[in-house]
């Protein structure tokens, strides 16, 4: 890229030229065997392998790219796959159909709408639209056991609306239609006929099994058995009755097993622990108050409870099904298809005669993350496969979406059954984590019962490292302690890097805090706030920050102008009105917003501020009803410049709100701002808590802040350091879910309701979640946890063992089900070199963290200094500053602390130029990353009429790079790349100007030269300083000379004589090319072009520049806020409201005149 920018966007496609597949991967890539399943462990490069295999098919096997379908879960993943293929294969890469499991459905349904019997103009329903429909169909619910309250007593989420929403979600994901449920349940009378059954079972037990000895209970068992058989035989044989019948059958088996055991005891052949005679009554639910004395309280085997919860789910389902059916009708009427519906409709279409035709569009189907697919997606995939040409990758150890419908067996048994010729290829070589981390992951996952396939992860090419890899932190004994205060010093130590245990200092962006649930993040976020540790919270974790609250309040005020609380908030926090003026506005009996617009300005103490608020409010209210939500939001942020008032942290938090607004803006007709939208904002988290945690969305990762996210969101990501808080049995215990048994019986037959223990299933999933968390770490894994002491008496343990022994195979529930001694397991699996940080890095910081500030002859810690500044400011506001204190200066230059190493600065041409112009602006922009001054947005404008010059430049540069990589030589091919890039990054505005740059480029001689390198990254080490950058292009001239070219899309002309940018590139070329490169120049493709100006730089020129640069970098090592240079450049400086800038540039908030 040009000197205007040395950033390299992370999404940018990089051909992985330098990376060769490892042997395991090579085997898979070259193999002709289909269908194939690759069970790939974490960090083994499964997507890489899949992409390479597709390349191989196209390059080596001459398969036409458009005959290949590649499916994955997230849009990010699909885009990145497409970009990677494109980077390697050129435009052919774009012809591969890379889709998400949902977007392929959207595509197929759009193409075959007629055949599918739907309107081709259908839209995908947003969460907001779904909720609106649910509210509209509430009266269709047949309220019997479901309470009609919409706002539940325990909060929003427990009302009828959220019950219906979650019911529809559960059913639809498993392809269960309202008709299916009707068929299974039958009439309300039939379901209510079963309502008392659990109680009758309990009564049978309590009536007959109260004997006080094994022999007396044994005598009663036949009677109990008989009554259970009678209950069973009274039930029908289909639907809900078949499920209940099956359950009673299981209890009959239990009676038989108990009888055998008790008989053996009576015959002297079996020892039974004390109190065993209480077991039958307990197991059948005969004790009114849970386990009696002698039976362990945590045995968890009152079996009638399972029937009870199944029946109450069925009762709720009986009520909700009519609401579900009405919801489907409404969707249809509004021409909407919801996310789950996309797959349902497509699967149905694939089952129709046209299915074959659709499948024939592709010869090969590639599937990523297959363990996360649900039953419907499995059917979809199999119906798309022709001639068995299926390639599936996934990791059953990372299946963590079973709880929301994923069917883990898809990648194991289901595939085996569907494809007899399936071959298996393993991927176990890991390129991510250090071996001790993998050892722990391997060992811990062994605890997983029912693990289908066994993989052992092994690290290859592990780089040298000198530091701790696995660290544990033992939670404090105090029951209430969340341990957040332990992880704060851990992060501070990681960032400072002073501790011996650490190989290096880590940037906050290297660190991820991965949590099991939201509540685990909250106390840590508070600690980060206090400590000033920057963090970014990924989409599914709610945060509440003051700045975001102010933006939301502005939206609320615009939506409901009578909402005076929100106006007050905005006037206070955005317009900084003083108390007297706010009181003046509130004093009037009219609506505040009217008073704001009508009161004469002279009545206010600070009329400028009031005037600004008035102007903005008037403008925004004027467009409120005509503008779409996202347009209004943009106008709000542009006109009020409200973001400027937010801290860096708050700007990160704001992204979440923007996500929600973006979601509302996806439809063809965007809704205007309404009170309903505001309501949905308030309830968004509780309603779509689940929706936010789908495998289909992946968060953006911050590179300058600790990433805080749920483990579910972290899938597919990796971080040098991973922290997992609160690993305890209690905190990680799975909770039971509604409709489990109902869903199973509707999907797999009536007898599936009680065939497995769903809590046990969820426990297994929890272990896999833990596995995912562990395997995100590259260098350091910090696990914080603790265990509670078991307090079971010995004889109770023996009762447990006995139960285990007696329970017949048809009883799927085991003693102490759902208990997950995760921390004990961790401790048991720790590799030898794991260390305990509890009393070291978790109990205090090593070295000097945060620096100090000198004031008034005192050395203050950062916290104290912050308070001091605020006290001084308050004193100043109140007119209480004494003349003496006023003269004292805060020595902020020492903020980084004398004993902490300077932040590792990486220089670039741009940063050096900035330093030469003004050391202070360099310090602010490159050392401390200060936020820009308030700018009156309406006063600044780019010459491009709204399109930034930078955007045009970046678009042209990226086009040139891709064109070079694909050896594309014709202008129309450049256009094509440029258009695609513009559409990807929504930069359509910049497209015309970028195309003009392309035109100008093709008027030059350069296109006829051979291009050697494009966007070549370099890293120069000069005197211990690191200088990095990118060279736009290296060409070979017809005279066989190499020439470095820097593209300039700007209007500024460069003088080659005093130039330092090009010599830096030439210095870099010494390390990049075998032959000498001495010529370099600028290619102007902007308005002042087209022209190329180059010159030859001699060895002496380069040496001089090198010396200059070295001197510069040495000086920068002593960076400070103190030095500055004022001049022309101040007009572009982001900090020109500081007193250092000439007066003409300083315009402060509230004082701008238009």
């Amino acid at each position: 890229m040009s000197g205007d920018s040395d950033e390299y966007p992370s999404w940018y496609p990089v051909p992985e030229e330098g990376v060769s597949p490892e042997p395991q991967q090579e085997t898979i890539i070259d193999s002709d065997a289909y269908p194939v399943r690759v069970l790939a462990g974490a960090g083994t490069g499964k997507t890489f392998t899949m992409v390479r295999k597709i390349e191989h098919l196209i390059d080596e096997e001459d398969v036409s790219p458009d005959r290949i379908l590649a499916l994955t879960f997230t849009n990010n993943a699909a885009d990145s796959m497409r970009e990677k293929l494109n980077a390697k294969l050129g435009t052919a890469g774009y012809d591969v159909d890379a889709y998400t499991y949902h977007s392929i459905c959207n595509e197929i349904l759009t193409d075959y709408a007629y055949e599918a019997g739907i309107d081709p103009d259908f839209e995908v329903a947003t969460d907001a639209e779904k909720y609106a429909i649910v509210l509209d169909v509430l009266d269709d619910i047949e309220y019997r056991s479901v309470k009609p309250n919409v706002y539940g007593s325990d909060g929003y989420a427990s009302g009828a609306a959220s019950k219906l929403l979650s019911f529809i979600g559960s059913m639809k994901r498993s392809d269960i239609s309202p008709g299916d449920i009707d068929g299974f349940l039958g009439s309300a009378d039939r379901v209510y006929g079963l309502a008392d059954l659990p109680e009758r079972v309990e009564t049978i037990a309590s009536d007959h099994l109260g004997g006080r000895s094994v022999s007396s209970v044994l005598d009663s068992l036949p009677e109990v058995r008989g009554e259970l058989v009678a209950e069973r035989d009274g039930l029908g044989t289909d639907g809900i009755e078949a499920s209940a019948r099956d359950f009673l059958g299981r209890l009959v088996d239990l009676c038989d097993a108990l009888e055998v055991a008790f008989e053996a005891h009576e015959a002297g052949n079996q020892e039974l622990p004390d109190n065993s005679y209480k077991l039958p009554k307990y197991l059948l639910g005969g004790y009114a108050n849970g386990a009696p004395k002698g039976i362990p309280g945590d045995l968890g085997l009152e079996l009638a409870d399972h029937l009870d919860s199944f029946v109450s789910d069925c009762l709720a389902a009986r009520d909700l099904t009519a609401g579900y059916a009405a919801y489907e009708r409404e969707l249809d009427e509004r021409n909407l298809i919801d996310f789950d519906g996309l797959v349902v409709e497509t699967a149905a279409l694939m089952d129709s005669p046209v299915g074959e035709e659709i499948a024939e569009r592709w010869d090969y189907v590639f599937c990523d993350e297959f363990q996360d697919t649900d039953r419907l997606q499995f059917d979809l995939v199999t119906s798309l496969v022709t001639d068995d040409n299926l390639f599936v990758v996934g990791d059953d150890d990372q299946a963590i979406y079973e709880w929301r419908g994923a069917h883990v067996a898809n990648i194991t048994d289901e595939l085996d059954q569907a494809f007899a010729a399936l071959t298996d290829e393993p991927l176990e070589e890991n390129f991510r984590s250090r071996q001790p981390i993998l050892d722990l992951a391997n060992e811990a996952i062994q605890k997983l019962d029912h693990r289908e396939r066994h993989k052992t992860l092994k690290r290859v090419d592990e780089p040298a490292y000198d530091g701790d890899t696995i660290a544990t932190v033992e939670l404090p004994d105090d029951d209430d302690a969340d341990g957040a205060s332990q992880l704060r010093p851990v992060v501070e130590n990681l960032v400072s890097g002073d501790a011996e245990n650490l190989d290096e200092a880590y940037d906050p962006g290297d660190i991820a805090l991965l949590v099991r649930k939201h509540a685990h993040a909250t106390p840590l976020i508070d600690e980060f706030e206090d400590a000033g540790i920057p963090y970014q919270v990924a989409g599914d974790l709610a945060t509440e920050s003051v700045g975001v609250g102010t933006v939301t309040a502005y939206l609320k005020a615009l939506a409901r102008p009578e909402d005076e609380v929100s106006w007050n908030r905005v006037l206070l926090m955005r317009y900084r009105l003083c108390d007297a003026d706010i009181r003046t506005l509130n004093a009037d009996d009219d609506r505040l917003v009217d008073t704001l617009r009508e009161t004469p300005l002279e009545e206010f103490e600070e009329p400028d501020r009031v005037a600004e608020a008035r102007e903005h409010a008037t403008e925004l209210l004027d467009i409120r009803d005509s503008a779409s939500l996202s347009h209004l939001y943009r106008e709000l942020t542009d006109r009020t410049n409200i973001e400027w008032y937010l801290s860096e942290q708050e700007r990160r938090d704001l992204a979440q709100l923007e996500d929600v607004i973006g979601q509302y803006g996806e439809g063809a007709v965007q809704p205007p701002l309404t009170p309903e939208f505001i309501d949905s904002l308030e309830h968004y988290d509780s309603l779509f808590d689940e929706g936010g945690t789908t495998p289909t969305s992946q968060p953006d990762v911050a590179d300058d802040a600790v990433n805080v996210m749920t483990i579910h969101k972290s899938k597919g990501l990796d971080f040098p350091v991973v922290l997992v808080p609160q690993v305890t049995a209690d905190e990680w215990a799975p909770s039971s879910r509604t409709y489990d048994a109902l869903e199973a019986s509707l999907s797999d037959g009536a007898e599936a309701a009680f065939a497995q223990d769903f809590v046990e299933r969820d426990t297994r999933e929890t272990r896999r979640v833990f596995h995912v968390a562990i395997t995100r770490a590259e260098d350091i894994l910090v696990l914080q946890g603790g265990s509670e002491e078991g307090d079971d008496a010995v004889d109770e343990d023996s009762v447990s063992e006995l139960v285990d022994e007696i329970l017949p195979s048809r009883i799927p529930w085991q003693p102490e089900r759902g208990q997950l001694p995760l921390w004990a397991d961790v401790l048991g699996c720790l590799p030898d070199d794991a260390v305990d940080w509890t009393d070291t890095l978790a109990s205090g910081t090593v070295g000097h963290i945060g620096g100090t500030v000198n004031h008034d002859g005192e050395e203050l810690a950062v916290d104290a200094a912050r308070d001091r500044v605020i006290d001084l400011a308050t004193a100043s506001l109140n007119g209480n500053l004494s003349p003496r204190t006023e003269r004292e200066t805060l020595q902020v230059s020492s903020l980084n602390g004398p004993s902490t190493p300077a932040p590792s600065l990486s220089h670039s041409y741009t940063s050096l130029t900035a330093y030469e112009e003004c050391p202070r602006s360099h310090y602010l922009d490159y050392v401390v990353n200060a936020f820009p001054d308030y700018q009156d947005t309406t006063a600044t404008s780019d010459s491009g009429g709204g399109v930034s010059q930078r955007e045009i430049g970046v678009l042209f540069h990226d086009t040139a790079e891709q064109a070079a990589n694909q050896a594309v030589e014709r202008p129309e091919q450049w256009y094509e790349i440029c258009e695609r890039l513009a559409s990807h990054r929504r930069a359509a505005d910049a497209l015309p100007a970028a195309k003009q740059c392309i035109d100008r480029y093709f008027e030059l001689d350069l296109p006829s030269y051979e291009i050697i390198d494009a966007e070549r990254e370099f890293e120069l080490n000069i005197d211990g300083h690191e200088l990095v950058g990118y060279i736009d292009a290296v060409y070979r001239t017809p005279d066989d000379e190499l020439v470095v070219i820097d593209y300039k899309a700007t209007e500024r002309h460069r003088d080659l004589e005093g130039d330092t940018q090009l010599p830096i590139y030439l210095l870099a070329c010494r390390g990049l090319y075998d032959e000498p490169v001495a010529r370099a120049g600028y290619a102007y493709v902007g308005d002042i072009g087209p022209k190329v100006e180059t010159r030859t730089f001699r060895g002496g020129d380069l040496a001089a520049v090198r010396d200059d640069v070295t001197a510069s970098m040495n000086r920068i090592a002593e960076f400070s806020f103190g030095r500055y240079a004022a001049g022309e450049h101040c007009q572009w400086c982001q900090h020109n409201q500081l007193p250092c800038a000439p007066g003409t540039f300083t315009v402060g908030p509230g004082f701008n005149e238009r």
Partner: protein
Amino acid sequence: MSSESLSPSRLANYATCPRLYDYRYVQDVNTPDRTELYLNQGTIYHETIEDVCDATDRGDDPETIHNRAMRIFDAKWDEHSIPDDYESAAHQEYQRAENRAAIASFFDPDGGDGIEHARYSVATECWVECEVDGRKLHGKADNVVRTDDGLHIFDYKRNTDGVLSSGTAEYLGEHLDGEAHEPKRVRNAFQTATYVEGVKNEPFYEDGMTVRFSFYGLLNSTSFESSSDGYEVSARGYPRETTGIYHEHRAAIWALIRDAHDGITGEAYEPEPFELITEEACPDCDYREMCADRLSPEVRR
């Protein structure tokens, strides 16, 4: 000291947080529309009871009173219940059934408390005033019932959850000392004081009468029965008397009243004790989003 007469509700608002009082009563800042469903339901049962009491004579038989109550309830429901307050017709119907069940049980001919409340009602919606230590108070009592030895004032509520009780009366003193924040119970105490003292200035009060005060939770106990035909709800109410607490904690209660009264008339709106208020009052406050006192520590952080 001012001669301004204040209601228990205003005093309690001040006791919750002086700044809240400033926003609500002094600056009169409108809060965003909230659902008025419970407010309207309150109007419905209050007016039903008022009308029944006013229409009832001592000699009316229970059956007549019951039927009258149900008739009035139905009319009041139609008058005050607004479909827009509810997300669904089913929700409105459910709430109607619950309220109707409460009225039916209150005026149960077979021993419902409402039968006696109606028969012996001396005054409904009774405006009372009093002055103690130079502080004037006023309020409106829902129902004043003649008892054998005096008067019993009732304040009808949806339920009496969290209402001042003998077990929680000690919190009044703690609130006074700034050790606890108990504005709801303080409000109950203010109400009790105002009505017990105020009713003594009414013409129907005679010297030597015993005055009692109770809150009455009409929906204190509700149940929901589900069957294949639909659901049925039932409700039952009962009182909680606070007269004894008033007499026992009289000194603390009047000290609290004086503090709040003087704070209001002296226009002192700084929220104190700040930490307690932040912790206890801010989370549910309608003005939390605009409150500079609450926002400043967060911004500071």
